[in-house]
């Protein structure tokens, strides 16, 4: 009997200590969305259950190892106890009930998290290897996600290539972004600040760096930013170079190609590309080692049919092959015009 009492007390002590300790070190990042609150609530319940179960197993385990260890010179066996059906049924049924309750709480937490708000602002998110772009209701596209505090938003997300996943740790929610189908994520930011959206699904070489800034701001700051973007977009749309620059942003070229001569390790830089000599490692119909001049025709071919000529030191099948169909002739010439300015 004494053993049971001591172990029982120790279980309670250890459970409380574990729970308190885990709470004290702040396991989760700050709560920056309305959705994070029910999620963290559920999480705390789970931590309580885990702490208790941890103690419930660990204490008798360690207690037995110490108290019931074999003493020197003792060669006898332990007590012959084969089992106890009542106990077995107890520890089948009680966890069963716990687990069912947990699943029930889980279900309605999920309901809270997914709740639809008809006033939500709609933002289109495009994911591609390896960049995010956001199209706002005002019609422009940017590489940053600006949100208004306490304003629910619904993100309509689609990928142009492989599967990505939208995740802001402080918002808690994660959602995969698929090619050929739209997935949605609903969030209501509640804390002003700067965050980062990361891609949480392995999507190839550049996955590590597939991030974009998320800025949650007040009404005034938000409006200022939106107006500035709208204005800049209108100006840029007037010249081919400006349009080219916009297209480059919208199509995520810059996630692979740098424009300042720095190396991304994924694709050649565009700085000084125009009219330079490019050494090829092969391609659909060229011999390895050929050197070509990067004239306009070459740039167009490289966009429409990237496999035709592979730049030495880079891989085939990395650059998407779809730009020839998704971009129009005039859009391509706008992009080329823009690339030509990057001396």
């Amino acid at each position, binding site marked *: 009997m004494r*053993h049971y009492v001591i172990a029982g007390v120790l279980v309670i002590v250890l459970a409380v200590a574990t729970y308190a300790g885990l709470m004290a070190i702040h396991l*989760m*990042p700050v709560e920056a969305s309305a959705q994070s609150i029910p*999620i963290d609530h*559920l999480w705390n319940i*789970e931590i309580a259950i*885990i702490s208790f*179960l*941890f103690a419930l*197993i660990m204490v008798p*385990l360690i207690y*037995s*190892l110490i108290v*019931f*260890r*074999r003493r020197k010179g003792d060669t*006898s066996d*332990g*007590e*012959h*106890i*084969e*089992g106890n*059906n009542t*106990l*077995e049924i107890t520890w089948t049924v009680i*966890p*069963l009930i716990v*687990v*069912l309750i*947990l*699943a029930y709480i*889980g279900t309605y937490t*999920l309901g809270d*998290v997914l709740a639809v708000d008809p006033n939500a602002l709609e933002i289109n998110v495009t994911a591609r290897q390896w960049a995010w772009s956001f199209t706002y209701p005002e019609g422009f596209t940017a590489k940053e996600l600006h949100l208004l505090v306490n304003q629910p938003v619904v993100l309509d997300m689609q990928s142009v*290539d*492989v*599967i990505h*996943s939208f*995740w802001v740790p402080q918002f*808690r*929610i*994660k*959602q995969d972004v*698929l*090619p*050929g*189908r739209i*997935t949605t994520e609903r969030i209501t930011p509640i804390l002003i600040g700067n965050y980062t959206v990361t*891609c*949480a699904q*392995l999507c*190839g*070489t*550049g*996955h*590590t760096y597939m991030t974009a800034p998320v800025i949650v701001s007040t009404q005034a700051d938000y409006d200022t930013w939106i107006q500035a973007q709208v204005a800049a977009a209108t100006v840029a749309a007037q010249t081919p170079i400006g349009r080219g620059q916009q297209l480059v942003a919208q199509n995520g070229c810059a996630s692979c190609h740098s424009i300042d001569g720095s190396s991304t390790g994924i694709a050649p830089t565009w700085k000084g590309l125009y009219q330079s000599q490019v050494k090829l*490692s*092969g391609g659909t119909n060229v011999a390895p080692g050929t050197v070509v001049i990067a004239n306009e025709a070459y740039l167009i071919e490289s966009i429409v049919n990237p496999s035709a000529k592979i730049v030495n030191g880079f*891989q085939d099948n990395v650059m998407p092959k779809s730009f020839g169909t998704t971009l129009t002739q005039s859009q391509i010439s706008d992009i080329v015009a823009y690339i030509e300015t990057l001396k």
Partner: protein
Amino acid sequence: MKKFFTSALMRGLFWQLIGWIVGALFVTGVRVLMGLNPFVTGQYFFTEPAWVFGGLVGAISYVASTGAMTDWFKWAKGEEVPEHREDPPGWEKYLNVSLDHKVIGVQYTVTALFLLCVGGLFALIFRTELAHSGLQFLTLQEYNTFMSLHGIVMIVGILLGVAGLMNYLVPMLIGAQDMAFPRLNAFSYWVAPPAAVLLLSTLLFGGFDTGWTGYPPLSERAPLGMQMFFLGVAVAGWASILGGLNLLASVLRMRAKGMTPFRMPIFVWAAIATSLISTTATQLIGLSFQMVMFQRLFGMGFFDSEKGGNPILFQHLFWFYSHPAVYVFVLPGLGIISELMPVFARKPLFGYRFVAMSSLGIALVGFLVWAHHMFVSGMNPYLRIPFMFSTLLVAVPTGVKFFSWVSTLWKGKIEAPTPMLFVIGGVVVFLLGGLSGPPNATVATDLHLQNTYWIVGHFHDTMFGGYIFPFFAAIYYWFPKVTGRRMNEALGKIHFWLMMPSFLTLTLLMMRVGLLGMRRRVADYDPALGFDNYHLIMTIAAYLIAISILIFLYNLIVSVTHGEVATGNVWNSRSPEWQVPSPMPVHNYDQPFEVIGEPYDYGLPGSVYIKFEDKKSKGH
């Protein structure tokens, strides 16, 4: 040395290479006849179909050249083959085709240890890269390749380790002379080495950067190495499928007299549950990988949304195997824990029937939970609820095991030599891993946890605690049975006391950074997150684990020839295999035995488990 180079193992490697080239040349020839481009400019010379077909021919050549199929060819030709084939004495039998389940068990185990070391080495490489933010010495592509290969090599390593334990132990435990189909058993083992070669060959073909899950559409675009990965896993799968089939048939048909279902040693129950999964579900990982292979080779649009395919279908097919597979890793490990604990606590296994049934329960419920890996995948949102319920249900039978283990220890007379240390370590680590499961299972919290280091921590704890620790326990425990010598106790204890704390540090920190926002499968992280120190400690912990494993390997190798001689019942166990002298005789038991008592009646004076029959009624 000459015997080494002419062994089946090396012969197979040679013929695999030849077969590979011949297969590739064949396809290239066909392409020439069809007027297609025979070669590709650039890195790999042959075209992708040529390499893939070559890989398949190579794998078959390996198995055929070892002689594992020779008897079948003879049967097909209508020739007589002898029922038994004795192995020549000496160590060469381990490198050649043997029909003895004990030899095959050792072959599996050694191959598994080799792969676990290779996979661990990959982990060390990329852990070193992660020690500090920024890219140190790996490119992004190299990081992904090492990370993905680490995952799959470890998993295949475990699968072979599982097969090793089951092969070595089950026939002995049930009192059989061998498995039901010894030739099939040998065949199952011999498909594993070429599969390992295929997997490692990915390094030569540009690697693959999809993780071990190989999700399309990413895997459609990955380098040629991807195909070798698919092929390697599909080939290795056959070892699992046929091994499981063989085991089920053996347990159903070869048990000793009187060994009723609830008088079998408990590990046998674990082996049954495991084999049920591996014979059936394994087909689906093969199928899903085959479908991506075909998509790459023939443009078949199963998972291509532009052709009306569905990338999520792949995930369903893949996880339909790969979730139950985690129970393939863990059930035998838990079986080992249940098997050894009574021996060292000197007390009967508490609630034998419940522990036995919980294995089956875990295996069966495990078939119904696969979509918990897909909570954020974009599948039908309502489907998530039933999968949450089913996943949480698995906690119940797992809990039964834990509670029964603890009750087995309670009021025992516990001894803690090295095998017992690993058993206890396994229980503790697996408890942490198991308890980190329910938060993943409740959908709402998984939205945060998915694809973070929290998950990485969860599954290292479950796999290490549920398999690697018990695997070490089993090796320390049955080593005398295999060799007639013991492994060194002191080194074993050092191994444990170095590995256990390092491992806990590694995984607890993984969980910590994961919750705070550390994604999986990244080569670099933002220094602003403040994870640098955590990662540095994790890397150091990984090296400490590696050192402990080197100590183990040293101990293992030296003990084979220099260990303390131990031919008797070293652990004072009631289990049948310890009632005969070590090393185990070729045909296991010279006289058949009959089961007349309960397997774990420690502490009941005068009770016996088995009784050998008289010499005269000797079988075969």
